[in-house]
């Protein structure tokens, strides 16, 4: 194996481990098992992926309820469901929840689960840091939402939280404090996970898996991690400045003292525009896996897909000011950022054309996953085109702060990001859970969601061009806004129905699973390494680390060209797939310390807002846990080791109970 060092993850299949019981600090070193405690101490990238996914879906419902409240308020003129103040909080928290607590963690779920599988690794580079990322993310998410209970309401400054609205004078409740500190906590989680996944992708690929043989999902997720790595510190700076202003009377955003409110806008959007690509690139990756599989063709223009992803990653840093065309930044800035915004449509267009070319002449199978993927391409293209209209600064001047903008970013984020990730859920569900999602319910889910989505956000283009402002809590009769607002509200209810069908599908397909044939390792005739191992994935992922000879390694294991250039099957799945029966594979030991570190952080947050003593307790807990972590060996030193491949047989016989299963 091309691995640098002998840490547990990289040992060959013959190596074995038993979890030794050894008290360390206050905890007994946790062992592998099946109870709920095992989920708290798990360092398995697959379980962490599932934790991310389940939590993200929970916050999807929270954000969804907030969205429905918004739509109920705006269904008719002079709505009175919410007060103006609560309305501000609800739309702010809707945005924050959907971006930071739903789409980003759902993408993190895919990244955690599938990067190691697609590159042929046993886990990520730092399994405990991986657990830390999740627990910090969850503690930040809970912290952020407790502002409803203890902070006097949610943040009320919009998800972008412009100065001076974010100041104490205009936002006196603690909502914005929770926003500033909560997003910092979430930022730590994403930063840790980006470092971890970048190292995983760069260092832990299976033999033969060069960068240009990596599956496109892994590529897009890798680019996403780089964007996170460089974008998060910028918003961290902005959030610190905001926190210092609100809690410690600093003067960063006080115009009376000569401060410049545009500083916040620049810092926020230097983060905020790459954030758009952080949201969309994982979905692009999913679509780039689903479409080739169901077209029975390799991805058209793999190199172009990879490099256009990289190009988006770079150019995403040069367009942030198009969010600020009306803030008086001067004609040169406006002209320069208009041009760069037009240019960034080029690599995105390359991607759309390559997906179409992949389908062209392919043997298409319209499963639910494929339908979601195709819908992603179509809906994202609509959103992308309205995005190009923003790059024309004079037009943007008319569109800014209207519902046209709301329509645009929901087409890219929901139509691109969310539909794309749903494609991924239907596609990889059998791999993760060992049973399919029901296709019939999936079809209902898909069509109702697609219709509901377009009914909700399509009319917003019209409303925006008619002049309806964003962020207004109500509107008067007689402006011609009534009909399309009602249509949008009906559409949002359809989306809610679709989500309910999805949740019912999750329950029903699990219930029906025992009566149906299992999907097997490779239900869709897939192309990448994760389909070469059993479903659900065994705890050690790969019995033997695969040797990679080219792109779409698993496909070429199954098929080859004959003398006439025709594709013929050379191996059945049963012959080629790994059985997952290896025992005694050396795995990293679980740990409670990541959870303990993560519990300290929100305490520091509450402490900064309410009582510094609490911050002290939180800080002590975090520091003590970090030291306990550092002193805890990565792997239990007392565990039975066996580093010699030739001893595989003996080890297997001796350690049949060594595996967690």
């Amino acid at each position, binding site marked *: 194996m091309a691995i640098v060092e002998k840490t547990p993850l990289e040992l060959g299949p013959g190596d074995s481990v038993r979890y030794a019981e050894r008290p360390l600090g206050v905890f007994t070193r946790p062992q592998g098992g099946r109870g709920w405690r095992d989920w708290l101490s798990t360092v398995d990238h697959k379980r962490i992926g599932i934790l991310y996914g389940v939590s993200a879906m929970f916050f999807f419902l929270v954000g969804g309820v907030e969205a429905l409240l918004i739509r109920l308020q705006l269904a008719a003129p002079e709505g009175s469901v919410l007060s103006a103040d609560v309305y501000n909080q609800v739309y702010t928290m809707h945005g924050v929840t959907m971006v930071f607590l739903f789409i980003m963690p759902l993408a993190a779920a895919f990244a955690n689960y599938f990067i190691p599988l697609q590159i042929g690794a046993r886990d990520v580079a730092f399994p405990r840091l991986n657990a830390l990322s999740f627990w910090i993310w969850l503690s930040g998410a809970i912290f952020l939402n407790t502002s409803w209970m203890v902070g006097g309401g949610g943040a009320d400054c919009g998800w972008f939280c412009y100065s001076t609205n974010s100041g104490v004078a205009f936002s006196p409740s603690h909502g914005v404090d929770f926003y500033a500190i909560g997003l910092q906590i979430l930022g730590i989680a994403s930063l840790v996970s980006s470092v971890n996944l970048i190292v995983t992708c*760069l260092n832990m690929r299976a*033999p033969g898996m060069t960068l240009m043989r990596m599956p496109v999902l892994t590529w897009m997720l890798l680019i996403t991690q780089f964007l996170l790595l460089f974008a998060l510190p910028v918003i*961290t700076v*902005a959030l610190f400045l905001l926190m210092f202003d609100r809690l410690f009377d*600093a003067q*960063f955003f006080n115009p009376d003292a000569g401060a410049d409110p545009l500083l916040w806008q620049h810092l926020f959007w230097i983060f905020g525009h790459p954030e758009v690509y952080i949201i969309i690139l994982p979905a692009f990756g999913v679509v780039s896996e689903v479409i080739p599989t169901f077209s029975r063709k390799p991805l058209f223009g793999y190199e172009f897909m990879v490099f256009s992803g990289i190009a988006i990653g770079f150019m995403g840093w040069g367009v942030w000011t198009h969010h600020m065309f009306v803030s008086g930044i001067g004609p040169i800035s406006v002209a320069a950022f208009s041009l760069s915004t037009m240019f960034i449509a080029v690599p995105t267009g390359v991607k759309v054309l390559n997906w179409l070319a992949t389908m062209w002449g392919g043997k298409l199978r319209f499963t639910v996953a494929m339908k979601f993927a195709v819908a992603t391409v179509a809906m994202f293209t609509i959103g992308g085109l309205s995005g190009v209209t923003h790059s024309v600064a004079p037009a943007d001047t008319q569109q800014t702060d209207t519902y046209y903008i709301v329509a645009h970013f929901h087409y890219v984020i929901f139509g691109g990001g969310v539909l794309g990730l749903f494609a991924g859920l239907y596609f990889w569900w059998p791999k993760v859970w060992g049973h399919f999602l029901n296709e019939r319910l999936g079809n209902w889910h898909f069509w109702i969601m697609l219709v509901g989505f377009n009914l909700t956000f399509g009319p917003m283009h019209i409303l925006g061009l008619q002049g309806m402002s964003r962020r207004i809590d109500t509107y008067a009769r007689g402006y011609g806004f009534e009909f399309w607002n009602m249509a949008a509200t009906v559409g949002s209810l359809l989306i809610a129905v679709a989500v309910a069908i999805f949740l019912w599908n999750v329950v029903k397909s699990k219930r029906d699973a025992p009566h149906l044939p299992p999907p097997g390792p490779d239900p869709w005739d897939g192309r990448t390494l994760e389909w070469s191992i059993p479903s659900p994935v065994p705890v050690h992922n790969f019995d033997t680390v695969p040797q*990679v000879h080219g792109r779409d390694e698993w496909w070429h294991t199954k098929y080859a060209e004959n003398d006439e250039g025709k594709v013929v099957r050379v191996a059945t799945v049963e012959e080629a797939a790994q059985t997952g029966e290896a025992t005694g594979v050396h795995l990293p030991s679980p740990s409670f310390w990541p959870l303990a570190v993560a519990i300290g952080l929100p305490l520091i947050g509450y402490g900064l807002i309410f009582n510094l003593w609490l911050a002290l307790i939180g800080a002590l807990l975090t520091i003590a846990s970090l030291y306990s972590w550092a002193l805890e060996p990565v792997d239990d030193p007392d565990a039975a080791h066996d580093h010699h491949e030739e001893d595989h047989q003996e080890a297997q016989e001796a350690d049949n109970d060594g595996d967690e299963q």
Partner: protein
Amino acid sequence: MSAEAVVADHGHDEHATTTGLSHTKLAMWVFLGSECLLFGGLISTYLLYKTRGNGRTLPTDVFDIPFTSVSSFVLLMSSLTMVLALSAVSRGEAEAGRTWLLATALLGGVFIGGQVYEFTSFVREGVAFTTNPASSAFFTLTGFHGVHVSLGIVMLMSLFVASLKGKLTQRNAETVEIVGLYWHFVDIVWIFIFTVIYLIPAD
């Protein structure tokens, strides 16, 4: 993480599927990349605000450049002792390694002491955290740097204690190297801050 780690040869495929760096060292490099943007944001904020005094004293009015030059020199010298510490540990000279680790931490400590003195004297001269946008930006930028140096001192002292307990041997000299990467990075950032904030005059 052993220093003598080698890239295993896997015969049939020549293509590298790893960077050849250990996971931890690569992780530190990647993290430092992120840190550049953090300090970039803070330095930009200061540059935007450095003349915005709201009619009160600016940080540039109270800078004591000879004093800060001396403490900058002290911090830069700590990079030298850091290198000597790594060199000693990787040669297996634990005692010398401890000496240089302690020297590095002490030099860092002197720098932090200088910063505390600087901050208190600035406050006495009428430039406090809340005085004006310029002062808020100054204290935030240099404060963030100071916190980074302090965390570095904590890491160095942890290594020192580990060495006393005999846990820091030639085999894990890479840990010293990784802490060294962080330490040198923090020093380099200070070169930027000192040049841009202190030496380039406000116009």
